[in-house]
């Protein structure tokens, strides 16, 4: 999908109008951002916004995350284990100590 984020009142107003008149192409709207379908029309609408408002319009291409494909087991397991921790106030860094779960620094450094 195409994620369009606006950074000025004018760009936000244009996005609002675009969303109103192209409901079928808008997957979801969030305030000053919207997810558009990844079609040529979605691209056309995004590029029109950028043409009009320049760098006040950010366009990203997004896709749903398949955690079983893109995320290593250790990360999924760490997330599951941490959410099932006994002590809700334990920060993850402390939780990971002495376990097989990766420490936050290691998580930060490794790209998906």
């Amino acid at each position: 999908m195409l994620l369009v984020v606006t950074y000025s009142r004018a760009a936000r107003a244009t996005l609002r109008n675009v969303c109103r008149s192209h409901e079928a192409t808008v997957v979801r709207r969030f305030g000053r951002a919207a997810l558009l379908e990844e079609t040529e029309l979605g691209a056309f609408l995004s590029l029109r916004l950028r043409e009009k408002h320049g760098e006040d319009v950010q366009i990203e291409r997004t896709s749903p995350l398949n955690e079983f494909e893109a995320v290593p087991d250790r990360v999924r397991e760490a997330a599951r284990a941490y959410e099932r921790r006994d002590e809700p106030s334990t920060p993850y860094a402390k939780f990971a100590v002495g376990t097989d779960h990766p420490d936050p620094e290691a998580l930060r450094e490794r790209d998906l």
Partner: protein
Amino acid sequence: MSATSEISIRVDGATYRGRTIDLGTGLPATAVVSAIRGEDPDPWVEATCPRPAPVHDHVGHVAPSVPFSLRAALAAAARSRGETAPQRPALESARERLAELTPPEADLADARRRVATAGASESQLRERVATLRGRLQAVRDVGGDVDPVRTELQAAIEELTEVETERIAAEQALEMAERDARSVRDRREERLRLEDRVANLERDARRSLAASVYEEFAAATAVLPGAAAAGDAPGEFEGETLTAMLAVARVADVDAPIVVESGPFDSAAGAADALDAPVVRL
């Protein structure tokens, strides 16, 4: 009263003077309004008068066809009397900060184009290398002269290496540019937040200024001809827009003449009395 001698309207060679002027019909009111406001003046109409205050934009041309927002007009009327909104200091500082905040332009289009171009030539070359490898094998299989194909393949492989290097460099440049753009976007976000703050403060200022003269406005609607129920706030006003316009004019301090195109008055003097302002009546 001191302004009386300062007001004069010249129409096609004839001059009309004074705080109240009855102009004959036939002249478009907009021409007189433009002359008074000094905007886009008609060569046939000339006005000499005090410079109109912003409230003139709201009540300076009394006609049903003129767009009118009661709250904005009331706020302008309050300002014409020297009232200031409690939001003003906050508004000024927000506007100042906004003026200082000019995020640098970071156009990434060139960086993106470079990556796309490099990527496209790389895949073309990859295909060419594959084709040449196939051809080399084919020539070899039939026992032909492999040298020309091998030379061509060698050149293509060298070129591919170069293009690969360019593609990697282009991607790294884009990545860095994206990282810079992120911090610029933080500033853009801050600017948007300030823009919203300014807009909200302006709206609140209009509300409180409008509220500060609302009682007087309500009293004015009761005095002026025309049916109107003012209620307690601009949103509650029920009645003719023209009546509201006249009542705001009466509340406001207006030095430049009000052009009365329609309304319940049969003379400029009557209108000037009711509106407590200089009047040009058509």
